[in-house]
């Protein structure tokens, strides 16, 4: 296969970036998208040019490192698929492929296709945990949780922290990411105790980081590689408003 790649190149956070075009021949349909970029990079290096910098590690869709905006879609055209799991057989021979980094105020570009997602870290640090110390856990089966709930909790917990939901959203909202974690804990006894406080601090942090509001377009769910459901946003909103009510009552 043969492609024309239009790739965003940017030296660092301070300089302005631009698209550069690279024709690439002899691509095998078996290659993964990142293997295709490896292949391009090998050629660039051998020609004495700087390779394209992009983030990746596990290359199997679980670490959340990778994340490219491909032809206008986060993680490319295939649903429920991370960039590293995407294969070239999903593209048409001869196609022009546009490759960009995530675009969001809260994810500034570091270099080429690499962005700074530390805002996501700070949202988790604001409350994405259960307050329990090592050594004070009760016996595991002392808190039974029915299978149906447990399965739902798992679905919420499957987020890989890639940031595609933000990239997909016209408001750059991080609602899906935060809601998934808030919902995971709100549905189980271990996490319920602090559910109201958690939603409060995490939402506050999300706003402070410059993520936008949610206008219910569901683009996040559509492009989330792990199929995280927007139902969790609804659940989070319930927690959020009831937390507001409580705090008003408490003055």
């Amino acid at each position, binding site marked *: 296969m043969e492609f024309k790649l239009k790739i965003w190149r940017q030296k660092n956070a301070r300089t302005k970036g631009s698209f550069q075009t690279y024709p690439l021949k002899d691509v095998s349909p078996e290659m993964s998208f990142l293997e295709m970029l490896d292949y391009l990079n090998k050629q660039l290096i051998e020609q004495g040019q*700087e390779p394209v910098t992009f983030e990746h590690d596990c290359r*199997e869709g679980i670490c959340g490192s990778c994340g490219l905006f491909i032809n206008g879609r986060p993680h490319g055209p295939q649903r429920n698929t991370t960039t590293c799991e995407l294969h070239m057989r999903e593209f048409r021979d001869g196609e022009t492929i546009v490759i960009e980094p995530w675009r969001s105020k809260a994810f500034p570009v570091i270099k080429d296709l690499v962005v700074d*997602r530390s805002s996501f870290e700070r949202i988790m*640090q604001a409350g994405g945990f*259960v307050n329990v110390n*090592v*050594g004070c856990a009760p016996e595991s089966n002392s808190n039974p949780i029915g299978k149906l709930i447990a399965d739902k909790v798992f679905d919420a917990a499957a987020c890989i922290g890639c940031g595609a939901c933000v990239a997909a959203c016209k408001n750059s909202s991080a609602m899906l990411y935060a809601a998934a974690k808030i919902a995971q804990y709100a549905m189980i006894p271990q996490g319920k105790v602090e559910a109201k406080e958690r939603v409060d601090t995490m939402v506050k942090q999300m706003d402070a980081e410059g993520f936008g509001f949610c206008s219910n377009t569901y683009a996040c769910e559509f492009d989330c590689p792990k199929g995280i459901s927007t139902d969790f946003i609804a659940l989070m909103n319930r927690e959020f408003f009831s937390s507001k009510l409580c705090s008003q009552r408490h003055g």
Partner: protein
Amino acid sequence: MQKLDSKIPDGPLAEKWSHYKANLRLVNPANKKKIDVIIVGTGLAGAGAASALGELGYNVKVFCFQDSPRRAHSVAAQGGINAAKNYKNDNDSIYRLFHDMIKGGDYRAREANVYRAAEVSNDVIDHFTAMGVPFARDYGGSLDTRSFGGVQVSRTFYAKGQTGQQCLLGTYSSLNRQIAKGTVKMFPRRDMLDVVIVDGKARGIITRNLLTGELERHAAHAVVLATGGYGTVFYLSTLGLGSNASAAWSAYRKGAFFANPSFIQIHPTSIPVLNDYQCKLTLMSESLRNDGRVWVPKEKGDKRHPNEITEEERDYYLERRYPAFGNLVPRDVASRAAKERCDAGYGVGDTGLSVYLDFKDAINKQGEKAIRDKYGNLFEMYEKITGINPYTQPMRIYPAGHYTMGGLWVDYNLMTTIPGLYAIGESNFSDHGANRLGASSLMQCSGDGYFILPNTISDYLADDIRTGKIPTEQPAFEEAEKQVADRIQRIMSVGGKETASSFHKRLGKIMWDHCGMRRDAEGLKKGMELLRQLEEEFWTNICVPGNDKDLNQELEKALKVADFFEVGLLMCEDALQREESCGAHFREEHQTETGEARRDDANFAFVGVWEYAGAEERPRLHKEALNYEYVEVKERSYK
């Protein structure tokens, strides 16, 4: 010469840890605030240790090379995590888990360490559950378990095929909680390039800030390495591409002994190599062997579609050779059996280098939904990579480099031979002997991090309450930083033509061919010769574009590959000295008539421990004798 003292406490096996722990010295809460601890790595081991030490009140600094601690490669573990809960009432116990691990490790692990790992396993599960880790549950709401290879009980807790992710995210949440409290400071996007030794004690590290290229000095009263495994020495492996040996290797060069480097697990069920551009092999979890049956055609070179090959024409070779354990034999056995069939010409696929893993019977019996519930994400992953639907035709699988049982030598306290330098999780050698049983690594990593290290390290730190801050403005730090800077300059200035990945790929092939699933003396010597040649070529022809004071992924790779040459040599050296077959280490010269591994307990019941002797010298071998007081050492049979 330094004598190896494993510091195994006296007393009956089941009481060693509780008794020893009760007598370890403590650091009082006010003094803990005055003590700094560095932890490198944020997998289950590192992040667990960091949260536990943070909760205790130490000042902790944590490092990882990814942009977030949540991306440590523990995240990729699929199948599950063991514990001796006996929830299935199948007569499981701490002793049985211990015994299974000793036997699974082919009698090459320390009894006391393994027993302790089994002992804390139940606490690990309870802690994860309390943190909200969504383990699979049955309809009544209790935790569910499944079976893994090499055992006859069901003790593996799981969260679909994403157990590592869920355990790591739980651990990450506890780490975040401490970061928020200010007890832990997180340094992502850092490569640790050296450990700093002051007056014989580990007192800090040198890191490279991957965004700016700056070299940084970090000081502490103790340093803990939790940097994972080095299976990427094979280039193609199931590990993340950033996984490396460099952190542990820098410690080895500074005098930490390295144990059993050649004990490296080749996992039997990975998606086979599909093309020449591949840089990564994707694991298909061992849990699949609960329901999947492994076979090849009875006829050599049978190229028909698998669904056209009838039952009578299939050779379920694991069930045939190992009736007692069938498809659930341990990994080393399953991997060698697959290689044996493929080498004999029965392999399937274009290359003939794969075997089938078939779910037809399980789907017929339990229904597609049940199978989807258990393995849905793995099946999807398989389809995305290969384009083939495993619900309708068997998966193709082949062995791949996966897990390193070898690692930094540690004593019972998890301390290396350098005082104040600890190694936990996959980066140490301690608990899995010559072969690791499935689902016991997550268990060991979490046990090390949450429950063992926090106790043993306090005993060491008790001497440091009056030491005060360790300054980074001192000769040991200057020297270490300079050495690192020189090495970087040396690589940057070669100005050759070949990329780091290309060297890595060639190096991996040498290791796979000469120090892989089957080894012999001649091949190992040849491998060493090839490695030396390639290393020389590397230092004259490596090409690193760009500049070192910038985000430079090619430089990161080149630094790691440069270390892998030395790792590879030591692996060959170790495999060569071990004139026996045990666990994952199979020497052609030492096998039974039926092709099974032949151990030599009279001469090789020891840990092979290597001491660095300088770049030009051959390393020195030390032996830590293994004494079995509680387990009867037997031939390891799964027949």
